[in-house]
């Protein structure tokens, strides 16, 4: 039987230079800070990071950016009151930005996890986001063709896991975690507690174990 539980540094060891890493969280809610810290220590660089925001303050994703490990950010909302690390790199031309509407970010990862090759999406029609992209009228409405975003690795934070890797989340910290878990080749989840298999309600499991490859317990 697979053993999922490990420490943060071991968990992130397979991240390679040039990988695409999906990082959960909406602001700090659901942000896998300890996994990101381990990724910084691990040292992989030239990364593409897919995450809703581009780091807050000087910790977590912002610290990864500050360490010069990120070639490109794919996100919906890089500019925040405390996104000074990203802002500085961007203005200095030291980081590439692919701006994706938040719903497209989620749906494109959902498509990756669900084996969808591409989808026609109404978001962004007639805006700069749609420029140069394939569009189509379907039933009188215009759509833009959007492609999946696959990750090599996903780093997410959940609330509890069982030993098989089933996950439940807590309140709005759920956000991108379940979608990213489906879209990456390897999913690493940081959880505040690992319980025995059978202790989670099968009706309430949000991420089934099939999507989870490593578990790191980080007691709050």
């Amino acid at each position, binding site marked *: 039987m697979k053993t999922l539980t490990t420490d943060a540094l071991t968990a992130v060891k397979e991240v390679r230079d040039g990988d695409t890493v999906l990082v959960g969280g909406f602001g700090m809610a659901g942000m896998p800070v300890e996994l990101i810290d381990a990724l910084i220590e691990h040292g992989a660089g030239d990364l593409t990071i897919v995450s809703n925001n581009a780091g807050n303050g000087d910790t977590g994703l912002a610290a990864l950016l500050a360490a010069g490990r990120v070639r490109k950010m794919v996100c919906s*909302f890089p500019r925040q009151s405390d996104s000074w690390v990203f802002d500085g790199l961007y203005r200095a031309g030291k980081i590439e930005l692919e701006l994706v509407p938040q*719903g497209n*970010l*989620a*749906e494109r990862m959902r498509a990756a996890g669900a084996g969808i090759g591409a989808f026609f999406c*109404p978001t962004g029609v*007639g*805006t700069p986001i749609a420029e140069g992209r394939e569009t189509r009228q379907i039933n009188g409405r215009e759509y833009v063709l959007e492609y999946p975003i696959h990750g090599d690795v996903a780093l997410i934070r959940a609330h509890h896991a069982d030993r098989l890797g089933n996950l439940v989340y807590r*309140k709005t910290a759920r956000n991108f975690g*379940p979608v990213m878990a489906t879209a990456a080749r390897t999913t690493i989840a940081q959880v505040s507690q690992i319980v025995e298999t059978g202790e989670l309600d099968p009706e309430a499991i949000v991420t089934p174990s099939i999507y989870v490859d490593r578990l790191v317990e980080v007691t709050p």
Partner: protein
Amino acid sequence: MSSKDDLARRVAADIPDGSYVNLGIGQPTAIARYLTAGSGVILHTENGMLGMGEVVADEDADWDLTNAGKQPVTELPGAAYFHHADSFAMMRGGHLDVCVMGAFQVSATGDLANWHTGAPDAIPAVGGAMDLAAGAKQVWVMMTLFTKSGEPKLVPSCTYPLTGKTCVTRVYTDVATFQITPDGVRVTELHGIGFEELASRLDVPLMQV
């Protein structure tokens, strides 16, 4: 002229009972304060929740429970959590009755510009605005009608990059409320300004109620 609180109160009063509503970050967040419990209005936040309550002070915060502006909020009875793809499917699929957003500009045909000034050195950030513009049954805008330098924000055609095309149906401002209809822009309320004066300050043809 209405204060920001008056404006929020007016928008709140116009939201039909029982509606599912998304309030954009910034000014529209204040609308929640004027929704009565008896209205049955249920608030959606795009980061994965229906049944969102009010913003709370940082010392009462549960940082796993925030709104789209990342402020700590409360959970009301009957709340439900869901992940981001489900949350935006809800928006994009046309299930939200109303969303209220701020704007840089709204055009006479309901085009919305609220994510980018177009300034070459600006760092673009769109968040969920384009998804809301494309998905909500009704998109309402809440803004001041003029910029600080006096330029109208209700315009014949947006000069800022668009968030969505032909999506705004109502515009609530400090001096007047507008309905954007297929026939044109109709003024439905005036606040301390006459219709003629308003019309003279806008480049958009206006209809009176």
